């Protein structure tokens, strides 16, 4: 490689690259060719390239449609039974056979979707709203408010969610999807509150919050406009996964006989009913269990995809 200029003054080991091979670019130039990318857009672009997103997305939409319009999927009523069909196998119009009590398994699985999903969504919305509000206020304002709220959170946190729900559910008489969701949320909110609090504290300590303060933006407006939007990502991830775990919790309670009452069609209850004939006819237990697991799985997968999309570090590592 030849030196470019004035070799005479230079010592022999002074090497200069050819200018044509190493062209000089303007310092800190703006590349105007690229499209603007907000972090939301980045997240979306990252999600939509993943097959897992589409698989779990389609499953979730399907589950929601089934829960809203179960009649679209089966014309058999889940509430009518005939003991003559007890544990009968599949036949035309009844693809999954019958339970011990002679109910149609397919219809029970379809109609059981609503209760599980309702409890999951209700409980998730409740913990998210409560957790986000409490966590934000505690983390942002700090001081005595934070101390009090954190101690109260510790108390609820010291009671495992389902264990607490077992105690309360075994003592109340009015059991429906709303009470189940309420009670699950009662013991579960500190998790979201803790995450939100930590996230808010780190978002509050940023220079952009200081810059906004110096602009004269009011404290509450900074919380709403700058802190919460930047702190919410981990909560979204946990909430998505929570939806799945609440559905599991509800089914566990129903399985124990203290979740939704026997009159409500639910997967957990059906699994409990089918266990007595597990040795002879395992399928009536298998199908609601499969529906339950697939539903939970789709929310967990979605949670994974969302986490990777919202956390640029995880995205880079993947």
């Amino acid at each position, binding site marked *: 490689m030849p030196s470019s200029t004035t070799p005479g003054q230079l010592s022999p*080991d002074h090497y*200069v690259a050819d200018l044509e091979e190493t062209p000089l670019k303007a310092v800190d130039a703006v590349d105007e060719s*690229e499209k603007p990318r907000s972090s939301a857009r980045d997240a979306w672009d990252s999600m939509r390239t993943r097959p897992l997103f589409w698989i779990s997305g389609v499953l979730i939409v399907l589950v929601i449609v089934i829960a809203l319009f179960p009649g679209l999927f089966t014309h058999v009523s889940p509430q009518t039974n005939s003991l003559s069909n007890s544990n009968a196998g599949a036949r035309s119009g009844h693809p999954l056979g019958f339970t011990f009590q002679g109910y149609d398994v397919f219809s029970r699985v379809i109609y059981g979707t609503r209760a599980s999903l309702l409890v999951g969504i209700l409980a998730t919305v409740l913990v998210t709203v409560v957790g986000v509000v409490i966590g934000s206020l505690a983390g942002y304002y700090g001081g005595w408010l934070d101390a009090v709220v954190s101690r109260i959170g510790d108390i609820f946190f010291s009671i495992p969610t389902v264990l607490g729900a077992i105690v309360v559910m075994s003592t109340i008489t009015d059991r429906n999807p709303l009470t189940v969701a309420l009670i699950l949320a009662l013991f579960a909110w500190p998790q979201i509150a803790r995450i939100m609090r930590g996230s808010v504290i780190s978002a509050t300590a*940023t220079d952009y919050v200081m810059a906004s303060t*110096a*602009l004269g933006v009011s404290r509450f407006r900074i919380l709403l406009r700058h802190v919460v939007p930047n702190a919410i990502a981990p909560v979204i991830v946990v909430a998505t996964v929570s939806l799945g775990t609440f559905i599991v919790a509800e089914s566990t309670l129903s399985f124990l006989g203290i979740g939704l009452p026997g009159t409500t069609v639910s997967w957990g209850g059906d699994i409990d009913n089918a266990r007595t004939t597990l040795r002879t006819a395992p399928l009536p237990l298998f199908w609601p269990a499969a529906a339950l697991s697939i539903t939970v799985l789709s929310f967990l997968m979605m949670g994974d995809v969302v986490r990777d999309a919202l956390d640029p570090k995880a995205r880079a590592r993947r």
Partner: protein
Amino acid sequence: MTTTTDTQTQAANGVVKGAPLLEIKGLNIGFKTQSGYVEAVRGVDLTLGQGETLAIVGESGSGKSTTATSIIDLLPGTGKVTAGEIFFEGRDLVKLPKPEISDIRGRLIGYVPQDPMSNLNPVWSIGFQVEEAIRANRVASGKDVRKRAIQVLEEAGLPDAGTRLKQFPHQFSGGMRQRVLIGIGLSARPKLLIADEPTSALDVTVQRRILDHLGTLTRDYGTSVLFITHDLGLAAERAEKLVVMYKGRVVESGPSQEILANPQHPYTQRLVAAAPSLASRRIQSQIAPSAVHGDAVAEAGSDDARRLQAAHEREQIAKHEAPDFIKVENLTKVYKIRQGGFKSTELKAVDDVSFEIPRGTTMALVGESGSGKSTVAKLVLQLESITSGTVTVGGSSVGALTGKDLFNFRRRVQPVFQDPYGSLDPVYSVGNTIAEPLITHGVGDSASRQARVRELLEQVSLPISMINRYPNELSGGQRQRIAVARALALKPDVIVLDEAVSALDVLVQGQILNLLTDLQSELGLTYLFITHDLAVVRLVADKVAVMQKGRIVESASTDEVFSNPSKEYTRDLLEAIPGANFAFGK
């Protein structure tokens, strides 16, 4: 390449001083990314002789660290050497099997990493981490390991090494941790030491002591040093040979002195012109721009002249204006620090600080980390409450302001913070970020605000198309321009610049400093310029106050402080500027 004497020393046996220890030829390094294959390093050649020190200089993203880590097969993530050879003592490290590389690491090639805070394992004691290096490289065994560990740490300049072995990294300061890392790197007396920005995270005075120490040690042991740095002044001061990298390629290499005095490649010329440590020297000695070659330099030189001119103008302004547009008197800030249980101790972050700044001028507040300089900035901005003393801006006492008055005060005094990645809200587009102050203060309607945002973008020399971009797409310098635009939106009188250019690459830093000086003369702004970097101060400040441990130890005009520092601490700081000892010129 022109430097090869073709004595490739494949059979390197004798230990000849200056004989090649490390030879890199045609090195290419690529990274696999989601958008394809990216070549981070292309065709790099360099030769390092025994006992020599060679510095690779470049900005972030130039490929300098990548080149260095590839030598001992420590490339991050998907990085891979795709072509070229790395000869170390005649063996090609690229082709060596993993166990043999592992044997070379530590024993023959030591490594000192960049960030002392993250490079020691937080769960193991210091002693454990040093001893494990000594054992792995079979330097000592049995009880001698401990002795050797103490010796290594003491050599690296860590006092009371014996008692400190049991302590954990989080109980050490950054400087102490860096000494531990240097001790580990040199523990096996390697033939080559790779030092990757070993002191960039430290205060200048600490940096200087550690580098002096490292220089002595490697000279005593006859260790060759491959030194990676972004600081041209530092490189020239510490290394005999220089390799300048730009966008993954070597643009110039050779003897340090010669490159600095006679840079050939336009990029090197730019770097030499912009290096604050060297440039400030030049202004001070009034060397005419023609003393350096190349267009880029001449251009930068005329910038210097323009800045000097601006400084003279400001001096004139200062004479006509009242000297106390900003007046800080006996300012004190005490923090209560909760200790275990219910006790709390008081920390005087700012202790009886007084200074004045005339309208339209710049005062620099200089100090090392923990000196209290940033706290002063927050007090002036009323982001923290004053414990005692007063701050007056244009006649009104800042501490007494509340409600509406405070809100109005915020229009007049605006900040620009250090971290260009933290000072802009990532969920706000550039347009919304700049418009936020206008909306907050109810300036104009939506259309006129849009117009003002465009005007501001123009003022900070950014294209209008930026308006819909988001901070994550911008470079550090561009973010800092946006932060400046936001600060200017309300047409303030005063801007507090808290380490506003410290995190930027040197060329970008120069650009932003120019922008700030231009804006000052255009808009008559008053700057309070907080920095740890004395070299930068010389370029922008009219007055300087030096802070140490919460107090102002010296305060005078910039020229006075630089030419005739009265306090020893100031002299230490000045001495510690990298390149300050470097005899510039022929």
